[in-house]
């Protein structure tokens, strides 16, 4: 295999592997912009992955499978929202509980489905015209599913919504200073609920992508810590949907390379790369001064009680 075709397939697969990370990160960005950390991404993704697989396998319709995955992710996130927004429980612990619960439940329900290949995966697209461009065509416009393009499009839309509309101002002010937002007549509880549930919806689709598109099958624990990488990416992207695109595809490349380089380095050592890199990347952004940390939403992680400061 010559270098050009190696490069082409590597970029193409890195793009494909970055998709679940992108969807998950976009969702988490919205939840955290509204001031709610959701460490349950891993749990929501694995529940999404299982649901998408089970529904697609039963009905033969991957679209329906992804829709149900979105629903399950949203439902799980609703639970987190109820605990953290209404009952004001600790956001970290609630998210961890959600991840434990999701991993356990998906493992439990998925036992009968283990290892079976999916009959009707989400079809890959070849974009007419664009895929003919030399090098770039096969890199970006072949063998991707529709979720790759929707994900990137969504990042732009969500960026516009967040930074160029009144709704975006409402979301950001709820995350920055809920007391002020409340005084301005913004319904803090509602905004937080909506953002957390929306985050869960995207995480569910991200998980579903894994089991019906990227690797059309179901194995227990198939998210393999991607949900935690998403949390790191949210910080790395400085809570900005557009930067999430680069971050997600960078880590997609890392994940993919850890399979690709197995001929040269032992696979176990390669598999730890993305996790090590997540720490390194966060540490490096720490060296860059307090620039990124200053961009964290001011009320991140804090429950809002009207009348308390």
């Amino acid at each position, binding site marked *: 295999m010559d270098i050009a075709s190696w490069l082409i397939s590597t970029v193409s697969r890195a793009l494909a592997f970055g998709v679940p990370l992108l969807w998950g990160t976009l969702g988490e960005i919205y939840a955290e912009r509204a001031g709610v950390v959701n460490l349950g991404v891993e749990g929501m993704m694995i529940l999404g992955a299982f649901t998408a697989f089970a529904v697609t396998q039963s009905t033969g319709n991957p679209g329906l499978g992804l829709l149900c995955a979105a629903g399950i992710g949203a439902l799980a996130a609703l639970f987190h929202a109820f605990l953290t927004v209404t009952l004001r*429980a600790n956001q970290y612990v609630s998210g961890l*509980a959600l*991840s434990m619960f999701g991993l356990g439940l998906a493992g439990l329900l998925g036992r009968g489905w283990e290892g079976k290949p999916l009959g009707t995966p989400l079809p890959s697209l070849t974009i007419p015209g664009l895929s003919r461009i030399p090098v770039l065509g096969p890199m970006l416009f072949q063998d991707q599913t529709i979720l790759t393009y929707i994900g990137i499009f969504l990042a732009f839309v969500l960026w516009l919504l967040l930074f160029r509309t009144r709704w975006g101002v409402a979301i950001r002010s709820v995350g920055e200073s809920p007391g002020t937002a409340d005084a301005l007549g913004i319904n803090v509880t509602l905004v937080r609920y909506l953002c957390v549930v929306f985050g869960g919806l995207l995480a569910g689709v991200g998980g579903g992508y894994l089991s019906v598109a990227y690797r059309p099958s179901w194995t227990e624990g198939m998210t393999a810590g991607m949900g935690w990488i998403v949390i*790191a990416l949210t910080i790395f992207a400085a809570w900005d949907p557009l930067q999430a695109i680069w971050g997600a595809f960078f880590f997609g490349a890392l994940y993919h390379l850890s399979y690709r380089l197995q001929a040269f380095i*032992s696979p176990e050592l390669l598999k730890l790369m993305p996790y090590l890199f997540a720490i390194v990347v966060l540490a490096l952004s720490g060296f860059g001064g307090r620039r990124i940390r200053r961009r964290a939403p001011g009320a991140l992680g804090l429950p809002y009680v009207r009348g308390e400061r």
Partner: protein
Amino acid sequence: MKRIGPFLLEPRLSPSRATVFLVSALSVAVALLLASLIFWGYGLNPWRAYAAIGRGVFGSWPSFSEVLRRAIPLILCGVGLTLAFRAQFWNIGAEGQLLAGATAATGVALFLPVPDGLRLPLMFLFGFLAGAVWAVIPALLRVKLGVNDVISTLMLNYVMSYIVEWLVHGPWKGPTMRGFAYTDAFPLSARLSYLPGTRVHWLTLVLGVALAFVVAFLLARTRLGYEIRVVGQNPDAGRYAGINFTLVLSFVMVISGGLAGLAGVGEVAGIHWRLRSPAHISMGYGYTAIIVAWLARGSPVAAIFTALLFGLIFAAGDYMKTVLNLPFQITGVFNGLILFFLIGFDILMFWRVRIARKEKEGVWTSQAGS
């Protein structure tokens, strides 16, 4: 103050110990009740299933001793986590720290040429150090570079887990183990002895309980313990008072990770007598210990008892798997549910419900207003 029908909700600043205990017990009970739906799903009568598990686990000393055996790593990790949580350091990395300890102990057991009598003490020493080093990294990363502690500790779990996988598949793979991904078995001098008729490696158990009291003393009665509590409860005041955050958090994580490391030593020297795949060494003790510490409300001594409760859940999981033929993943669902209800019911501790007529409230408000 809030009114719902005839009920008046009053805020309560510091709940009594009895309230804390009752609310915690209630949340565990409700979680178990909800979890019984799973038994329905598998066509079992939940009541009978719980009864069978109860008989199975408490029925005989050897089976009950499994509760103790499972509780040992949970006590060590849980006590360490109470310390970290008191300093508001989110150590989600006990799993990786445990594996680090197990790895270091294996290194000493198999490759270090030392007299037999020194082997076990050195295994505990190096196990502690390995866990401590693995835990100090995130502490320094947070203090020096502002790296989020949840992320760094979690990521290090994965890193350590793959290092162990690499060791048992590669350089440390035992030549006598044929195709299996194990190291060679430990020499006899590197194995812990059991309580008769059980798999309870009592030395680790004694160590865990003793260290729980040491940590409790440290927190309540020493200057350093005071500083740890200040760092956790009011970091701004701590900074103003000139507390050295680097030092305090590093110390907290040395102890927290060190204890998890000791748990890892206990598992390889007491149960497996070799290093093998991480899922077999730990089975999620490090994650479960988070719930142990949370249920103990930051008290190291209480963590002994909450660890026993989760030891019971693990032992019940074993029983369900072998006798009732239910998958072991059930324990994960149980753990998640318990944690959910635990934090969900927290609000009950800080609100007191009282029945009161409308006028009374009016009088109180007007007095307060005047």
